[in-house]
């Protein structure tokens, strides 16, 4: 049985124009030890998916309208707030995009790591503190014993993200959700962080959900990927297969609109493939059409008439496009 199983999830948020489904009929499974990646532009529901899994949807604005999230056999959509508190940070934990703003500036980093251990593992102050030092060492912060007393402002962006990783991994969670963990960082630091995450995964056997817009990062980090567009799953499949042969025009667009560094560069530089336009406005989410049709070069009359079904290509690869078979 899958470690995490999401079935027909629908998340709605209230806007002035009415209720809009920011996640619309999303289903996927996550196996233990697997790394899965969510890709898409901003406003496509990637981060909302993460927040829904964590039970952290903005109160009064967003809510789960339908569907189920089963973690280790336990239903999370109906779980009590107290139970969710136990799970968060212990079994499922999250790294946020902005290492600059997600640490508390008023506490030293040792205290912030130890807090998680005291809350979830009932460790004593002393034991939690010494384990905090070990964790800092594990995320390769040099001279951990001295740095544990530092405040966030004394650290660089990469170091702060390492501290976030230490906090997230403190209780050896079964699932680690990383929401654009390296977007704010330089490439060489990004390489260090990816390296660290992969090592940690190997040691602890936890599953990783990586949310990103960078196809290169997906190719390096994940085994399977889900391409999200306007709150819907556009394509799901093994990373290698999807990159080699995308079955959805949006996936193909995301891959070819970015200038990649290839193994050997030549004088030739082709025009980048453009995905014209932008992601539709929230009030258009949930319509019974293909929401990508207005930006799609392959769109036909059928695409505007009804939402495309998910078409299977082999056991693991699905695409929600009327013309997927022709691509």
């Amino acid at each position, binding site marked *: 049985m899958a470690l995490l199983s999401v079935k027909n999830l629908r998340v709605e948020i209230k806007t002035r124009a009415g209720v809009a489904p920011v996640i619309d009929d999303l289903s996927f499974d996550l196996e233990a030890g697997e790394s899965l990646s969510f890709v898409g532009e901003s406003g496509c529901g990637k981060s909302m998916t993460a927040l829904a899994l964590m039970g952290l949807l903005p109160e009064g604005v967003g809510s789960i309208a339908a569907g189920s999230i089963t973690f280790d056999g336990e239903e999370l959509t109906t779980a009590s707030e107290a139970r969710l508190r136990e799970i968060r940070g212990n079994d499922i934990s999250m790294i946020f995009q902005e290492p600059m703003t997600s640490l508390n500036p008023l506490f030293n980093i040792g205290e912030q790591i130890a807090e998680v251990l005291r809350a979830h593992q009932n460790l004593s102050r002393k034991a939690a503190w010494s384990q905090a030092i070990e964790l800092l060492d594990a995320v390769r912060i040099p001279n951990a014993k001295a740095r544990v007393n530092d405040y966030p402002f004394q650290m660089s962006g990469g170091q702060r993200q390492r501290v976030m990783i230490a906090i997230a991994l403190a209780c050896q969670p079964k699932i680690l959700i990383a929401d654009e963990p390296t977007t704010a960082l330089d*490439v*060489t630091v990004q*390489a*260090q962080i990816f390296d660290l995450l992969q090592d940690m995964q190997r040691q602890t056997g936890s599953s990783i959900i990586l949310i990103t817009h960078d196809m290169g990062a997906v190719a390096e980090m994940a085994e399977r990927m889900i391409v999200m567009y306007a709150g819907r799953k556009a394509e799901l499949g093994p990373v290698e297969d999807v990159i080699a042969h995308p079955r959805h025009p949006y996936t193909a667009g995301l*891959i070819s609109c970015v*200038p*990649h*560094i290839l*193994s050997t560069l030549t004088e030739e530089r082709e025009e980048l*493939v453009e995905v014209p336009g932008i992601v539709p406005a929230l009030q258009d989410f949930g319509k019974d059409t293909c929401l990508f049709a207005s930006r799609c070069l392959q769109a036909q009359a059928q695409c505007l008439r009804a939402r495309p079904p998910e078409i299977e290509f082999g056991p693991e690869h699905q695409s929600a496009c009327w013309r997927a078979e022709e691509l």
Partner: protein
Amino acid sequence: MSSDILLNVEDLVVRFAVKRGRGFGKNAYLHAVDDVNFTVKRGETLAIVGESGSGKTTAALAVARLVNSYKGKVELNGTDLLTLGDEDLRQARAKVQFIFQDPYSSLNPRLRAGDIVREPMESLGSMTEVEKAERIDFLFEAVGLRPEQQRLFPHQFSGGQRQRIGIARALATQPDVIICDEPVSALDVAVQAQILNLLRKLQKDFGLTYLFISHDLGVVQHMCDSIAVMYMGKIVEYGPRLDIFNAPQHPYTRALLSAVPSVDKARRAQTKRILIPGDPPDPVNLPDGCRFANRCPAAQDICRRDEPELSNGVACHFPGAEL
């Protein structure tokens, strides 16, 4: 000097006084740009790449005289921009224009799009009102906006459209050089392609010269003809596009290139990731010798003693060393 060199920067130094003085009345200086030399040919693109804090943006700002330089020369068409004053400087500013990184904060929210594009012509040009209006129409079409959109305010545009307004504004005074400071890094990936294609099209149509600042090596590879790699205020490697990407010599350039995640399976298989541990040194108290030595996998004693000069396009004692 051959005639097709449009922009020639020599021994440019930009330093900032920092409060951490040693003793009273003595200032310590942070050398954000330290002895930088480069040239840009007419109609070509030079990219300056580097990580945050490498001095690439400061170098660009200094070329446009938006920060004061301490020393050096910035020659545009043979005139040194750094010595100009008053009216001459105003005239020269029309020839060097800037596209900024963040299209959300670089447009005046109280001006209509048309007026934003008109502003540089008001303050730097000497056109009649009719000519200005014609030029605005022309520029809106060139960057792919509709004429009626001149009446709208910045908040009514998407990020990509705002960057198009920024590009139209930069083109308004018919500049010789356009400095693009991370023009797409604030945009969504699909929109990035639209802006990059537009910039290349405008370059072809109008024969523009770009100084392109970016940290994204994929974008740089696509846009530029030559590249200068900066680290801690110094250019560590400088050369034509194919040389830098296919046969990088400096260990930092190689680490930087190997760090870029790629969808190309062949590239992933053949590149060994070179991790550079640690952090860059304190820019106020720079170590002796090479600034990269403390993180360099090929560093030897001489690297910590003598600072390498830029020769044959690379500033390293052991270019191309086994890593």
